[in-house]
């Protein structure tokens, strides 16, 4: 297709009179602002640029007022929100770089490529800061596994994450999965990546400085991938061939590995030449170049004829908005271009100067000898932001204040049912497809509370987890937010790590719905509240709104990705029981906390009522005790309690070992399943009993012993029973695989 075969581009007047801008998502109000600020009508291309840059995805116009409230500064923060990824100081000149990203919609439409390109995108965010990615985690939500469609979505997402992450050679070390019909038609696929910077002085940020420095395009060629979805295709292209065309983005992990290695090498070998780097994510060349210019207080000029293309006849709109994967934009000091270009070429990659940094704060594009856009770069990148009204959701207003009281006539039977719930059962069905060991730094692999990655050449290690329970957030956004970060912290603490910071993915419904906006506002407030108490600043994140099907929103799901720091890798602790005869302690007291719990869902088919309380002080004190005890070498194992409660945590500590346990609990049967926050189970060698008990005081209660028998023996205030280990293990291990059959 040549340019002549293109449909006639609309004139500026037609863009206005036919409201083309509205098809691209700009409101009349916004178009008026643009027209007024520019003092003329934007042309076709310019309107396209605004529509992309002013979209929620690129501008966060509806979530920004909330995001601004995140607490994101403390003594460790080297880079907070606003760049490719956040950065925390971990001592010795080293820094940890991390961020999470959602790829929900693309994964729902095309699960393999959606998930794969999600991994590719988050990795680019990390290495665009100059850091070496060292791990990936994934946080997934699906509807209940009940039909072929869900199964193929699940298979596709797993294969996509595996296909990309395994090939590029960054281990996928953890994550979380839960199943609930609230995610029907709207699965969540969030990925988090963590990178390491050995020298803090090589941090690269995406800020274009210095008049006449070069803008260099590197990586894959540009095609018509992911361009503005259906409206564009249907209004502008009607020929047979075009309706056959597809805008699905395909990931190429091989290409990305080359781009990653070369970029890290460029930063290490030519730190002064490489002034800024930004990956091309949503709205491709457009957002990367305009944001770099704006943040650096500069202007940008690009010559679109220089952009490497994969297809013929692409118009400026397409070149600018294409979301072809595995591309990066660099700003390179004038005169140093050759060295950088040669480095990429040596790796077999395209690297081309496509423009310059200017000092006039304009965003200008040339195409076939003509200027096709000339805009104030600030106007382009600073969409108006909206503070939207919010309203307490009706279901919360009307919620019963009573806690649900489970009816347990046969605890053994209920335990087996709980173990076979896909949200509770082993997630090995997922993580066995992910290479969790490549790079040979993974000390704690998937299957524990948090993953642990050692930092070679030091005694340090990083503990990594993702968590959130959407059911809790649905019942109470504020407390649910607190609990999400609390659970993440418990997981990290169980491995012996001090929580040092978080990233997030805010997965919500349509923010124009006042109840959804309320959920967003309140859950962020809850996260913020507990983040401060934990001293874990929010250094990066991502927002995914409009997760709705037929006007029904998903559970509000603010995923928390947390990083913890372990100073001495000999102190790394895992969940598994270690020795026959070790003493088992329960840390933290157990309430009658059942609204939103797995047992409520199991027994009533839904969750309801007012969410149970969150005791921040108990949470903090218990976490502190775990860390102190690990530091003192007193704990042989540690495991936090979450979904499914005490009984699930006890069993999980034994499933992957040759041990079992005897437990004698001063609780009623129902409380085996209570989901009171702030609790752990730990094991202690008998010799250390006095020291540990002295340290723990009334925070810990001796509840049993590790045995080497083939059954679990449990006694509560109401009953006494035993569970066959083999049978329980099988149920827990095979549940997801059986459902997927």
């Amino acid at each position: 297709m040549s340019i002549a075969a293109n449909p006639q581009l609309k004139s500026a007047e037609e863009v206005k009179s036919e409201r083309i801008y509205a098809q691209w998502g700009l409101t009349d109000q916004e178009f008026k602002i643009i027209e007024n600020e520019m003092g003329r009508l934007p042309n076709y291309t310019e309107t396209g640029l605004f529509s992309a840059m002013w979209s929620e995805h690129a501008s966060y116009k509806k979530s920004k007022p909330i995001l601004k409230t995140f607490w994101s500064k403390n003594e460790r923060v080297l880079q907070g929100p606003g760049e490719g990824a956040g950065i925390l100081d971990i001592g010795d000149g080293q820094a940890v770089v991390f961020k999470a990203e959602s790829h929900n919609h693309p994964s729902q439409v095309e699960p393999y490529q959606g998930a794969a390109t999600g991994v590719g995108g988050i990795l680019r965010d990390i290495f665009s800061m100059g850091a070496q990615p060292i791990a990936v985690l994934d946080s997934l939500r699906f509807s209940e596994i009940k039909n072929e469609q869900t199964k193929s979505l699940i298979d596709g997402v797993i294969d996509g994450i595996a296909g990309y992450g395994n090939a590029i050679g960054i281990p996928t070390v953890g994550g979380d999965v839960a199943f609930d019909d609230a995610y029907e038609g709207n699965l969540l696929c969030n990925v988090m990546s963590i990178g390491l910077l050995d020298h803090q002085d090589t941090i690269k940020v995406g800020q274009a400085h210095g008049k006449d420095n070069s803008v260099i395009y590197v990586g894959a060629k540009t095609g018509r991938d992911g361009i503005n979805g259906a409206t564009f295709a249907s209004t502008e292209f009607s020929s047979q061939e075009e309706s056959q065309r597809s805008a699905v983005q395909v990931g190429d992990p091989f290409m990305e590995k080359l781009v990653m290695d070369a970029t890290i090498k460029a930063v290490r070998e030519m730190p002064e030449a490489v002034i800024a780097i930004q990956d091309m994510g949503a709205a491709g060349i457009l957002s990367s170049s305009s944001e770099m210019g704006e943040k650096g207080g500069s202007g940008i000029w690009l010559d679109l004829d220089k952009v490497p293309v994969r297809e013929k006849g692409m118009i400026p709109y397409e070149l600018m908005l294409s979301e072809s994967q595995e591309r990066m934009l660099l700003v390179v000091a004038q005169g140093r271009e050759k060295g950088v270009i040669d480095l990429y070429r040596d790796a077999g990659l395209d690297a081309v100067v496509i423009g310059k940094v200017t000092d006039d704060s304009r965003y200008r594009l040339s195409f076939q000898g003509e200027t096709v856009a000339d805009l104030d770069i600030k106007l382009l990148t600073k969409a108006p932001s909206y503070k939207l009204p919010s309203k307490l959701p009706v279901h919360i207003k009307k919620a019963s204040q009573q806690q649900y009281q489970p009816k347990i006539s046969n605890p053994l039977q209920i335990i087996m049912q709980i173990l076979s719930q896909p949200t509770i059962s082993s997630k090995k069905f997922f993580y066995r497809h992910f290479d969790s060991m490549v790079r040979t730094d993974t000390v704690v692999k998937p299957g524990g509370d948090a993953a642990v990655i050692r930092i070679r050449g030091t005694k340090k290690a990083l503990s990594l987890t993702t968590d959130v329970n959407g059911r809790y957030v649905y019942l109470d956004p504020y407390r649910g937010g607190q609990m999400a970060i609390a659970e993440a912290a418990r997981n990290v603490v169980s491995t012996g790590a001090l929580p040092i910071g978080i990233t997030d993915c805010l997965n919500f419904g349509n923010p124009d719905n006042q109840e959804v906006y309320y959920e967003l506002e309140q859950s962020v407030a809850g996260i913020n509240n507990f983040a401060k108490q934990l001293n874990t600043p929010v250094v990066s994140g991502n927002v995914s709104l409009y997760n709705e099907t037929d006007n029904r929103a998903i559970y509000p799901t603010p995923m928390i990705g947390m990083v913890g720091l372990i100073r001495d890798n000999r102190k790394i602790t895992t969940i598994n029981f270690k020795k026959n005869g070790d003493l088992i302690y329960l840390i933290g007291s157990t309430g009658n906390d059942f609204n939103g719990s797995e047992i409520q869902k199991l027994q009533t088919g839904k969750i309801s009522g007012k969410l149970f309380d969150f005791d921040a002080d108990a949470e903090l004190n218990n976490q502190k005790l775990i860390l102190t005890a690990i530091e003192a070498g007193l704990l042989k194992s540690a495991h936090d309690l979450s979904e499914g409660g005490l009984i699930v945590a006890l069993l999980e500590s034994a499933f992957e070992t040759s041990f079992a346990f005897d437990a004698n609990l001063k609780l009623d049967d129902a409380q085996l399943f209570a989901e009171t926050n702030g609790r752990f189970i730990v094991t202690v060698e008998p010799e250390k009993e006095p020291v540990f008990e002295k340290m723990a005081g009334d925070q810990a209660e001796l509840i049993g012993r590790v045995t080497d028998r083939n059954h679990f023996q449990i006694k509560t205030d109401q009953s006494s029973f035993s569970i066959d280990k083999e049978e329980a293990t099988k149920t827990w291990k095979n549940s997801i695989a059986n459902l997927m059959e």
Partner: protein
Amino acid sequence: MKAAVLDFPGSNCDFDMYYALIDFGIDAKIIDARQSNLDDYDAIFLPGGFSYGDYLRAGAIARFAPAMEAVKKAADQGRFVVGICNGFQILTEAGLLPGALRMNAKAGFICDQVLLNVENDNSLFTKNLYRQQLLLPIAHAGGNYYADQETLTKLHANRQIIFTYQDNPNGSIDDIAGIVNEKGNVFGVMPHPERAVDPLLGNIDGRPFFESILQTSGVLN
């Protein structure tokens, strides 16, 4: 002893192998597979990963990398050539080892630890194995070994099969996990011994493999 770890575009276990070798005091270097002279090296390691994206077939494109001529030469001269995972795939594609590796019988990539039976503890690569079984990591989507009947008969007769799987994870014929060439100096194996050398990572069953190489080459005794 000097060892080269080849880095093909898309290799991703090159550093893992390098660190493992260094750990045993072996003088190792990562060498770009576009280089064609490997005369200086006593042993050449083809690491795991996805050379050229594993596009077309795993190892199919990598076998034409310039370094592969030098690998052939090393193999002919009786030096050690070791292919792990993708390296094994490359060696079969290059014809330095018999047979081929197909996609796993049950589709999909598997990352796990599996028990291996030591079928031949007298090879250059297994001399130091003091046990009948090892637990080693696997991480592959295409580890399903295939050879025709004639080749298999030969492999058995010459004791070229070094490891078999206890519970076959990928459909490999005769449960084969690792083999050597007729001369015994070229070794290919799907599991990853280099991932099992550091006690901090919880598994050191890969160590005797490296110790065997050192012993054979006279560095250890």
